[in-house]
């Protein structure tokens, strides 16, 4: 049994954690930092860069540098229109069930991009443990729907990881807190991250962490605050300098990234200072502005307010009033903002806990869950819920709910179907997630087709379909015809996301590409070595010792140089290496002569 790591795959930062002597610890990134920025950059020379190395390229090559990819997970192009106004990279017009990000002449889906981040985290862990990492627990926002969870699982698979559990972020945080404090009672976890907001209410008793209700908004977070501030700067630039930044040209995209960097650092400063300065250096002038905390707060108030309604709904679903809570815990970087803390305190009428680092607590909790799944601890058990009701479309486009939101998972429901036409051999089932009455107002999850039913008169077949939401919050469907006892075969068409076949194909291609990348690196390295020996040989041939060589020996050296130069043009690293070895051998005598002279002159100097 290998090591299972816990991974917090965040909108802004990602990190991995593991358990050492019963305590969760963060895996340091390969550059020594604990947080790995969730940024992937495709550099033509250096290949794929992840983390801080990629962040530096946001200002240089914004259209080849991908951040906030989590906002695109499990979504269609229609869902991300608003995000694409801000993001410097483009999505392909061919995107349909899944968004495709364009990088040069290639396209990447969000799971593929996330896989680069996951691989980086796994490599850091491999470096730390000196062994291969193949298993992980990955966290997601509690309010993620089925497609978003599935996309995260796909990302893990593409990164070569067996994802043992998709875990909800606020519940992961509660595990870390529970471990730390060993306290029992009712807890609310308020989690405002870079791109998503979650609220979960749990009851902790005898090591059992039972989620009573969860709510949230998977499109609300620190990114939205950045956009407000960027808008402020953009509007002012228009008035003061007549500059309009739409992000259409490359220069404009670079400018926008400069503004983004400046407003983020101002935002961070305002958490501990009353004022901050926004400074952006453009090529011919510098934009400067002072931002006071009260200005900042009135600007972001609407965003903070948007988190409060889900909190109220969550309390109601849990059957609680604020007085029933024993603790409120804050998670996510955006909870460092004083206004957020004030509003949370007002709503829940108690001071929130902030003892654990809000950036790290989710990964730490994921490591605890990894420990549980690894069979190493049985004193804690998490009972989580499904955030959204699951239903099927019935006559008139109305949804019939099968599993209600906040049901403890795993959860299952059995529904019986029949045929409407004589001899009908297939039945279509449209599965949706959401709370609304009409199918069109909910999130389409998948269309299932029950096939191969024995032909019978209309209404006679009794097909029992079992819907199961597993402990990851992911749906699976099985069916059998009750009269014949025959298992019905099911064809699944996910409404958003990749099919299993597509994931398999990507996995195959990524291995092929990895091989190709590896070969290219070998070519580059052998060419570098060839450069060194060629220039050394050139110098040696100009030395006085070269004149002392036999004619044949000189010709042999020149011949070896020519064949190395020829091999250099090709892309066969082994051939280049062979030619380097030949040249080395041919110049052995000449090198000796030069060395002798060097030794003698050194001796003379010492005399």
């Amino acid at each position, binding site marked *: 049994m290998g090591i299972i790591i816990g991974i917090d795959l965040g909108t802004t930062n990602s990190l991995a954690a593991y358990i050492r002597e019963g305590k969760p610890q963060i895996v340091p990134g390969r550059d020594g930092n604990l947080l790995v920025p969730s940024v992937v950059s495709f550099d033509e020379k250096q290949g794929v860069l992840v983390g801080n190395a990629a962040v530096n390229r946001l200002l240089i090559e914004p259209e080849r540098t991908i951040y906030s990819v989590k906002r695109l997970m499990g979504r269609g192009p229609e869902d991300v229109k608003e995000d694409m106004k801000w993001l410097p990279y483009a999505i392909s017009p061919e995107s349909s069930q899944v968004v495709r990000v364009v990088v040069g002449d290639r396209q990447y889906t969000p799971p593929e991009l996330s896989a680069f981040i996951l691989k980086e985290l796994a490599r850091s862990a491999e470096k730390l443990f000196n062994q291969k990492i193949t298993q992980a627990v990955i966290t997601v926002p509690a309010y993620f729907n089925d497609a978003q969870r599935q996309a995260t699982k796909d990302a893990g698979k593409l990164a070569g990881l067996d994802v043992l559990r998709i875990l909800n972020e606020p519940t992961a945080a509660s595990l870390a807190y529970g471990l730390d404090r060993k306290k029992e009672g009712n807890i609310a976890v308020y989690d405002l991250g870079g791109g998503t907001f979650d609220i979960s209410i749990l009851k902790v008793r005898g090591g*059992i962490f039972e989620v009573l209700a969860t709510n949230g908004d998977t499109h609300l977070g620190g990114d939205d605050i950045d956009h407000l501030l960027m808008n402020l700067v953009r509007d002012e630039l228009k008035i003061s300098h007549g500059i309009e930044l739409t992000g259409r040209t490359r220069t404009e995209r670079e400018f926008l990234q400069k503004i983004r960097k400046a407003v983020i650092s101002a935002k961070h400063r305002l958490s501990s200072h009353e004022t901050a300065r926004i400074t952006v250096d453009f090529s011919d002038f510098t934009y400067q502005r002072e931002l006071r905390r009260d200005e900042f707060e009135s600007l972001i108030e609407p965003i903070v307010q948007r988190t409060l309604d889900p909190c109220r709904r969550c309390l109601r679903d849990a059957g609680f009033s604020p007085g029933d809570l024993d603790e409120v815990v804050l998670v996510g970087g955006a909870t460092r903002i004083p206004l957020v803390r004030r509003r949370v305190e007002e709503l829940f009428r108690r001071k929130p806990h902030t003892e654990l680092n809000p950036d790290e607590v989710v990964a730490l909790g994921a490591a605890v869950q990894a420990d549980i799944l690894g069979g190493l601890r049985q004193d804690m058990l998490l009972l989580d819920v499904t955030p959204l009701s699951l239903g099927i479309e019935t006559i008139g486009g109305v949804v019939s709910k099968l599993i209600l939101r906040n049901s*403890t998972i*795993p959860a*299952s429901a059995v529904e019986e179907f029949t045929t409407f036409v004589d001899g009908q051999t297939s039945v279509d089932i449209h599965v949706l997630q959401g709370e609304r009455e009409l199918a069109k107002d909910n999130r389409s999850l998948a269309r299932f087709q029950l096939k191969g039913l024995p032909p019978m008169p209309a209404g006679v077949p009794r097909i029992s379909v079992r819907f199961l939401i597993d402990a990851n919050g992911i749906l699976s469907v099985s069916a059998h015809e009750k009269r014949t006892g025959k298992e019905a075969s099911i064809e699944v068409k996910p409404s958003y996301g990749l099919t299993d076949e597509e994931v398999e194909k990507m996995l195959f291609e990524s291995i092929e590409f990895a091989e190709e990348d590896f070969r290219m690196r070998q070519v580059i390295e052998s060419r570098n070595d060839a450069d060194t020996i060629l220039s050394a040989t050139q110098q040696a041939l100009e030395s006085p010792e070269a004149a002392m060589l036999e004619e044949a020996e000189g010709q042999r050296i020149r011949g070896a140089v020519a064949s190395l130069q020829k091999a250099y043009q090709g892309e066969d690293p082994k051939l280049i290496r062979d030619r380097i070895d030949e040249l080395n051998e041919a110049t052995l005598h000449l090198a000796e002569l030069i060395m002798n002279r060097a030794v003698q002159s050194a001796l003379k100097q010492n005399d």
Partner: protein
Amino acid sequence: MFSNPMVCWSCRHTVAPQDHFCPSCHRIQPLEEEINYFQFLSLGDRMNPVPGDLEREFHRLSRLFHPDYYNLRSPEERKFSLERSSFLNGAYRTVRDPVMRARYRLKLEGFNVDEERGKTPPDLLMEVFEINEQLEELSQAENRRDLTQASQLRDKLLGQAVRMKERLRVLDSELAEVFKSWDASLDDGVMPELQRQQLVARMHELLSYRSYIRNLVEDIEEKDREWE
């Protein structure tokens, strides 16, 4: 799976229908279709569990079945753990809520209790008539943009909702009484068939009445939300 007598899928030892685990090899067993929520939660035939006891039993069984503890086991055991824990979660969700519990009991007794609105109970006729009339008048007042009258009607309707909710509380305590009589009768030994039928009929009556009132309250609350 439904062969009789039942045997363990792994060691072929005899297993009783209510056994979660094989008494010999202790492996988790597949779920039997015949088992009901009450039996599953170790309540036997009882209707009135002590809330704390019910939660403790839910937690105890969760620790036994949860997939988190079967990650390293065989595919069969993982499948059965998933079956049992999802069944347990459904059972607990149903049994902990008195109305859902009663509805489930009625289903076991062969009644089909759905959410549909049945005939108006006679003693409610006057009030239902009044509420529907006020709802209609409220819509008309809104169309006329007569805010004063709309606001008066709204207050009246909210007053009705408060009274209806009071009725729901009374019904809930009556339902609790039925549960108590049910269990008391079980404690005396075997429940006489006639008494069982009477208690089931009473539960059915209370539930229909309750869902009728519940729908009325929802109508008013929905109208109130629209108004806001």
